[in-house]
């Protein structure tokens, strides 16, 4: 979870770019509520935080617990602004030792913030973002240090955290817990609408699509607003191109869906192998299948074999989506090419070529599903490891292999036919000798005779 969070943050910074001479601030920052009054819908949490800050020495720390993008940091910043306090932001990795924290605080006191000169701030809040990342029980940094810091701090400490983690239990115990739930899509939609209005783009995106963005955001304000911004920018860009070409603006609507689908790619959480395969086999476009495959995460499979495993899953389940042999034959050709490419990647360790593997696989799926309704309704089967009973007598095989140092394959291919012949055609002396040599019991003897007659 924290990983996806980080990639989102990177995305934020990417969206900050110059266009037309002025710097675009990411909408997420631009429309971040500035005061507590602007924040809607979380009154109980607001009160709880304000109370904690006001009664500071009573309770020394607070933990805001909740999924990413629900406004934890925003709430702290707004509260600080309302109460005229400075916020010292820290990462969990900064909080290695009490010294480093003290240093950071004293630094910030020396280089005073502008508001200090106005003389209106009263005190500070230490904000430690994403304590999830902290080490559990190591001697440097980690929970014990953080506990010490909390005990000695002159200022209230506010931490944010995405999940309830047992390694942080001791911190939770000494802190005021403020729990957030993911935001309802309806509130997200309202906010999106508001933002669109303020940007002056109302009407460019239909309510239906706003709803979709809100839903696919999984209760995450930040990602929803980012999506909205990228979509609007992409649409405007497309519009400009279309205008240049003299095309009609009416074409925008048809492309919206496609763009939205593409945007969703970055929004999806990592998928389990089953969900990923289901999504991949259910998509009708190369882009869709590729996205699903790319999002699959298999923590228990070594990265070297991740892609083989995905291909195996697909081969196991591909027969469920179509009965059209022509299409499947083409797909199999593509899967075979994909595997060839993967072998090449592994041989040369040229992992940049992996993209071709993924595209081959996605193209294989799309070549079957394209034109159909899409969607995968059956259950996803695990690839079967096929066990076939080997009828050759293992005692004989092992004994020969041990004595003559030949591989099982060579024995089966080259020696077994002769031995069978000798068992059948000979006068029985060989059979007896062989049984003695192998030291067989009655059941073993029967087994060998049966095998020879086959």
């Amino acid at each position: 979870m924290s990983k996806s969070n980080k990639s989102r943050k990177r995305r934020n910074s990417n969206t900050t770019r110059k266009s037309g001479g002025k710097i675009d601030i990411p909408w997420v920052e631009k429309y971040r509520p500035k005061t507590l009054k602007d924040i809607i819908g979380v009154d109980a949490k607001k009160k709880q935080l304000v109370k904690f800050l006001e009664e500071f020495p009573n309770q020394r720390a607070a933990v805001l617990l909740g999924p990413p993008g629900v406004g934890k940091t925003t709430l702290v910043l707004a509260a600080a602004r309302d109460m005229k306090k400075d916020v010292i932001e820290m990462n969990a990795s900064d909080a290695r030792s009490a010294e480093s924290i003290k240093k950071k605080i004293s630094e910030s006191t020396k280089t005073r913030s502008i508001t200090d000169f106005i003389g209106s701030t009263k005190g500070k809040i230490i904000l430690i973002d994403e304590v999830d990342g902290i080490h559990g029980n190591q001697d440097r940094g980690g929970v014990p240090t953080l506990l010490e810091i909390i005990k000695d701090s002159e200022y209230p400490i506010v931490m944010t955290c995405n999940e309830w983690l047992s390694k942080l239990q001791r911190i939770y115990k000494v802190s005021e817990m403020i729990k957030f739930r993911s935001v309802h899509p309806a509130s997200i939609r309202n906010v999106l609408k508001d933002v669109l209005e303020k940007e002056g783009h109302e009407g460019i995106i239909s309510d239906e699509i706003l709803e979709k963005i809100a839903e696919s955001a999984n209760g995450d304000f930040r990602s929803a607003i980012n999506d909205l911004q990228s979509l609007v920018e992409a649409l405007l860009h497309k519009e400009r191109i279309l205008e240049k070409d003299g095309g009609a603006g009416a074409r925008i609507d048809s492309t919206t869906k496609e763009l939205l689908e593409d945007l969703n790619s970055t929004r999806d959480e990592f998928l389990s192998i089953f969900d990923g395969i289901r999504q991949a086999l259910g998509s009708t476009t190369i882009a869709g299948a590729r996205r699903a495959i790319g999002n699959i995460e298999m923590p228990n499979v070594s990265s070297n074999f991740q892609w083989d495993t995905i291909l195996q899953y697909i081969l196991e389940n591909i027969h469920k989506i179509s009965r059209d042999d022509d299409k499947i034959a083409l797909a199999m050709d593509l899967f075979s090419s994909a595997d060839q490419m993967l072998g090449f990647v592994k041989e040369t360790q040229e992992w940049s070529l992996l993209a071709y593997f993924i595209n081959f696989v996605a193209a294989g799926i799309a070549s079957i599903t394209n034109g159909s309704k899409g969607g995968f309704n059956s259950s996803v089967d695990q690839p079967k490891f096929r066990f076939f009973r080997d009828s050759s007598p293992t005692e004989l095989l092992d004994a020969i292999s041990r004595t003559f140092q030949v591989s099982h394959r060579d024995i089966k291919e080259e020696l077994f036919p002769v031995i069978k012949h000798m068992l059948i055609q000979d006068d029985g002396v060989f059979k007896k000798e062989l049984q003695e040599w192998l030291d067989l019991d009655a059941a073993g003897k029967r087994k060998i005779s049966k095998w020879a007659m086959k």
Partner: protein
Amino acid sequence: MVSFSNNNPLERIYSLKHEPRVLEEIAGHEESKERLERLISSRSVTHLLLAGPPGSGKLTLAKCFARDLLGTEMKAALGIVHVSNPLTSEERKAAKRDSYVSKTRIGSKAGLKFTWPKFIQMRVKPFVELKAMNALGYKILIVTDFHLLGNDQQGFRRLMEMYGRNCRFILLTSQISSIIDPIISRCQILLISPVSKARFYKEVKSIGNKEDFKVNYTFINSLYHVTRGNIGLALNYIQMMILRGWELTGDKLFQLLKKVVDTSGFTRFLELAMNGKYLDARNLYFSIKKEAGYTFTTFLETLHEKALHAPISQSFKAHIVDTIAMINAKSLPSSSDEPHLFQLVYALGQLVADGSP
């Protein structure tokens, strides 16, 4: 190594009885023998890579070389590992157990997992780790079908570096294209080709003198064609024919092959694939593979031989051979077979759909 107990009944099998014990006894392979003998006389042996088609005599050469080099100390100092022999489930479990260091242990490796490939962990490492106690100061490990190691070759390379002083490796392969460069650069390479027909004739004839059977040239011609110069296999065929009480002629030889070699699985595989029973064909492949120990490549080779003898039109045969050849080439860089197998069965099905045989 091969210690015949006096009453070993398998000694009656010609191919085992007349298996060469020393380099001198090996028929043909003059150039390779000379190189190996030079290595023995210098006593400094490098890692060796013997590449050549199946049945060309790589293992025999390697065994005889080791025997000549190690002499009486052979029993303790020579190991032979067959990559094609699958790990048993117990070995797999043991490998998993061994690869984990308990958390309660003290040290920087506590709680860590070691990822030696299972095969190397179970079959190779125990042998090479043990210190060589012989006069030479190093052991010899022969690894057959080395290309089947696939991705584990990198692990093997690491092993060669770590234990190279203690053990010299002789790697045998019939598919040199699948061997990774770092391995190739660490080995002296010997290319082994099958013995010539004249040499084959001479050898089989001389064994015939000992075992009291006579072969004529036309029979040897067929035999050489069928076995691709594999003398051991040729002796097996001869023995089977003798046991059946047959004359040694080309016709009878092919009659025998139909009985012995064709387990009818291949023809059935072709039928299933061409009739659109793809999943059945796949299952049949896995059972053939398990039963006879085929690799995907050797399976395809045999299948294409079978297709040539199937009762179908000439142009259709050409198409089948084309398909098989293309898929064989495509499957070479990869270690997995299923994607290519699926392509094969569907391509065969498509051939039928496009034009009837």
